[in-house]
């Protein structure tokens, strides 16, 4: 898929450059883009390294497990089919709390275990309502501190790169709420398979 997007972008630029008479600029852009990518990665590098360190501290001192315990009562309402399976519920809670803390490396394995568990509990051949809900929650952002984008803002000279936090939290909450509500409503439009 990415191959088609990439080739499509290059193709589109060549067509537009020919039409607009900007062939010279186009060829300069190839070199500029390549060197700008190194600048970006280097300038956000320090923040990425620091934050990866902080994530490791959170993982080792059991902060993620603590958050998991706090979240379980709320998640019972969102995932009724996992109520009687402490194991699946635990995986869901671990997935959500790792997402909140920005622990991407821990969130995906826990999420996949949770998805497999929900599918097993359901026992049918299509995606259950709760499985769709888990995936929808994972496709909308849960991360409390968006470190990468803050690092980009800092590298471009923002005085307070984190001043966007209240806006990010507001947008994330609205996006999550819409995701949960539309998963609830749309589930009625797609019938379940018989087996």
């Amino acid at each position, binding site marked *: 898929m*990415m191959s088609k*997007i990439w080739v499509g972008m290059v193709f*589109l*630029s*060549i067509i*537009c*450059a020919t039409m607009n008479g*900007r062939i010279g*600029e*186009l060829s*300069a*852009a*190839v070199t*500029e*883009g*390549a060197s*700008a*990518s190194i600048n970006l990665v280097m300038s956000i*590098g320090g923040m*990425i*390294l*620091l934050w*990866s*360190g902080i994530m*490791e*501290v959170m993982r*080792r*001192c059991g*902060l993620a497990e603590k958050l998991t315990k706090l979240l379980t009562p709320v998640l019972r309402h969102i995932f009724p089919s996992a109520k009687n399976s402490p194991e699946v519920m635990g995986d869901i809670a671990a997935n959500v709390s790792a997402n909140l803390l920005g622990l991407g*490396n821990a969130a995906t394995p826990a999420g996949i275990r949770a998805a*497999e568990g929900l599918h097993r509990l359901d026992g049918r*051949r*299509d995606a259950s309502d709760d499985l*769709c809900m888990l*995936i929808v929650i*994972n*496709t909308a*952002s849960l991360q409390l*501190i*968006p470190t990468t984008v803050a690092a*980009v*803002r800092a590298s*471009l000279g923002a005085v*307070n790169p*984190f*001043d966007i*936090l209240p806006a*990010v939290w*507001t*947008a*994330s909450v*609205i*996006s999550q*709420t*819409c*995701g949960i509500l*539309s998963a609830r409503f749309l*589930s009625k*439009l*797609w019938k379940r398979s018989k087996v």
Partner: protein
Amino acid sequence: MNTLTSLTVPVTLLLIGGYGVYKKTDVYDALIHGAGDGIKLLFRILPSITALFCAIYMLRASGALDIICSIMSPLTSFFGIPEECSPLLLLRPLSGSAALAFGSDIIKTCGVNSLAGRTAAVMLGASETTFYTISVYFGAIGLNRTRHAIPAALCADVAGFIASAIAVRLFFNT
């Protein structure tokens, strides 16, 4: 408000470090090891960022970006989304690195404190790579009948994008 958000990160560092010391974790060792993993992450994203930056710079130099923005402008202006951010709406659900490359280009050209620059940052911070996530999860359990997962996920994305633009206007009075 400003001092509060400025304090969020330093205080988070203190709380996490302090909790680690209280739990008798070797905080410094964890920091160093974690940062070591961060280097691997950086080298993992660099190749795709380079490939995508080339394509994005080409799109901009050729004038193709202006065309995309003007085609989408009736839609984006209706929701109060800055026109410069419209390519981000298309790329964000498809590719994380493309969205990061594009978003940082918007932040750079429009300015960190501009409406478009801030909206791009908030959009990046408040969304995920939807199609990638869906393919990882359904791929891992080998399921094709995804029912309403994709439409519901896209509803969340659209709501997040519109909310990002509104939230930036609300919090920064621009």
